[in-house]
């Protein structure tokens, strides 16, 4: 779950990570009031999950409460185009913050890294810009610190990563508590990403989180009810993906072709896409029902895929391990009963309880296939290649 900037900063503040003074506003009037509370000058920032808010016209430094109000009015309730998301996003909320007196901008990130199997800090003195660009242009200005979960962040770690990241030794005494608190916030909140870019060093030498991009592990949300309330926020710009989100289908990607693809397991669904493409078809979507899916989810998935008018045929490819063929078959039947099906549906069922599933599907209009390849070829021949 991605958190918006103001949510991330609320979280960080709880752990003592310094963030700018400020408050969120849902209306232009609230924005004016917030700016007034800050003494007039403020930064007004659109709150959306997509990056590139500056380029999208979503951030402005305002000199007076009236300025703040006017800018908020110009974006609240409106849609802005975000290059990174390749689409429009509506702005429902702004963050009104004190304007910091910036001496330097650093970059601090933590993410959980597959390779080292640890939480890894990325530290750089080159903040305020795209860290991937920094990694290319100034590889020497990037410090990398895998944190041993049994030890936490140690002072010697911080000295080392600061040196690698080009942060002066004299600033370690300020950097150390910042990193330790950020790490605690990260681990305690079950984050999977926390990016502070920029970490602002103010002209009076304070370290303050200028921005906060935090993602929380969905699997751990159950133990963070205070964060789970944020989970409503969605960054999808595609209407089918928004609908999938609403239906609780987590692994759906809209692709725009004409053959709907539903399967169990990301690898198998991708493999099915490959076979459909090779057979001359064009996948309309990627939809992974996951492991151990129940009939209700299968039904929902079929309804979603069929709601796309481009879809001229559907392929179900199920090779059950923990997923049981009979559950899937029941779901397919339920789906075909709840919506009017006008396109061919090819079903390939193998693995756990496949025989039971095939028995359930017997006598329906569903077209059986024995292998993935056969299923792909059948649906493409029925739909016709693009």
């Amino acid at each position: 779950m991605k958190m918006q900037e103001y949510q991330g900063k609320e979280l960080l503040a709880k752990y003592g990570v310094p963030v700018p003074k400020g408050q969120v506003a849902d209306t232009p009037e609230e924005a004016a009031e917030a700016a007034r509370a800050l003494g007039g000058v403020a930064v007004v920032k659109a709150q959306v999950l997509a990056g590139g808010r500056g380029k999208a016209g979503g951030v402005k430094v305002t000199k007076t409460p009236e300025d703040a109000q006017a800018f908020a009015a110009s974006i609240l309730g409106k849609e802005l185009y975000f290059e990174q998301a390749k689409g429009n996003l509506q702005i429902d909320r702004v963050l009104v913050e004190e304007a910091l007196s910036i001496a330097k901008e650093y970059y601090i990130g933590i993410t959980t890294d597959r390779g080292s199997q640890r939480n890894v800090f990325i530290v750089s003195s080159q903040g305020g810009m795209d860290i991937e660009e920094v990694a290319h242009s100034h590889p020497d200005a990037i410090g990398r610190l895998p944190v041993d979960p049994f030890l936490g962040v140690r002072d010697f770690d911080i000295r080392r990563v600061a040196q690698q990241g080009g942060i002066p030794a004299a600033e370690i005494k300020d950097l150390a508590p910042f990193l330790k608190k950020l790490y605690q916030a990260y681990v305690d909140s079950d984050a999977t990403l926390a990016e502070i870019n920029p970490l602002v060093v103010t002209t009076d030498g304070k370290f303050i989180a200028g921005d906060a991009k935090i993602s929380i592990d969905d699997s751990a949300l159950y133990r963070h009810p205070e964060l789970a309330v944020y989970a409503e926020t969605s960054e999808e710009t595609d209407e089918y993906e928004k609908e999938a989100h609403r239906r609780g289908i987590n692994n759906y990607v809209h692709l725009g072709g004409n053959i709907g693809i539903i399967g169990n397991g990301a690898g198998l669904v991708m493999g099915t896409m490959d076979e459909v493409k090779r057979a001359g078809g064009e996948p309309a979507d990627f939809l992974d029902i996951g492991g151990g899916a129940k009939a209700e989810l299968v039904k929902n998935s079929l309804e979603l895929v069929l709601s796309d008018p481009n879809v001229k045929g559907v392929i179900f490819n199920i090779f059950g391990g923990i997923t049981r063929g009979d559950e899937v078959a029941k779901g397919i039947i339920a789906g075909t009963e709840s919506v009017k099906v006008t396109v061919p549906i090819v079903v390939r069922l193998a693995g756990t309880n496949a025989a039971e599933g095939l028995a359930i599907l017997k006598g329906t209009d569903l077209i059986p296939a024995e292998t993935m390849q056969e299923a792909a070829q059948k649906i493409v021949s029925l739909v016709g290649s693009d």
Partner: protein
Amino acid sequence: MSILVDENTKVVVSGITGGEGAFHSALMQDYGTQVVAGVKPGGGGTVTERGVPIFDTVAEAVEKTGANAQFVVVGPRFAADSIIEGAAAGIDLIVCITEFIPVQEMVTAVRFVKSQGTTRLVGPNCPGILTAGKGKIGIIPPSSFTPGSVGVVSRSGTLCYEIVDALTRAGIGQTTAVGIGGDPILGSTFVDILPLFEADPETKAVVLVGEIGGADEEIAAEYIKTMTKPVVGFIGGRSAPPGKRMGHAGAIVSGTSGSAQGKVDALNAVGVAVAETSSDVPGLIRQALARVGVTV
């Protein structure tokens, strides 16, 4: 021979009384696997419907039954602790199929397992291990398997089944299939499993089933350079458009790193033929085996 699991493997099942635990333990037994114990806190002293004794702790199960492998099939809130329990009890092989374990818990659990030195973890969020005709731990459906000489190691569970199915249909049998799982933090990756196949006299060739995202295939390629046995690759998601998430947390395409093409290139560079689709795998394996003088 074969790797990790065979007819001598003695399995303790953590979560044997749960729905999935009972169902899949029975399937494991049906496939000939020795399921010697189950663990359920507070359930010690009872037995399952199939007569498997239940203990309160893994340590006690190990003491009383000599279990050397653990099948973790408990819910996501308990799975990391169950893995740690197994490693602390000195289990040699832990297979955890549980999905949605909090990542931070896995960071701790994997760190602990590795600090124990003698325990190997496969998973979590993986289908497990199946040795054709000898036994299995996990949820891999055995119907497609037939004993033979090809090892399979796969990030994707269902693609693993698919490829085994394709091999068997083509008349090519398998030694062991290992599903390593798709989570960001895994107990075993390709480079942990490939050396076992390399050392196994029964295995003559290996299929490596990768997918987009991460760098595991690129790292595996480095190791494959040193292998004497032929490896055939398949990368799920070759047709996935860059920039779109396709399920698994790991399967994120960003730039070159993690892309299907990058992985194919890395594998090709070390002499690994990579199949376009899973149905091409058997043909490539047959060619690879022929080159080392094995006919299947």
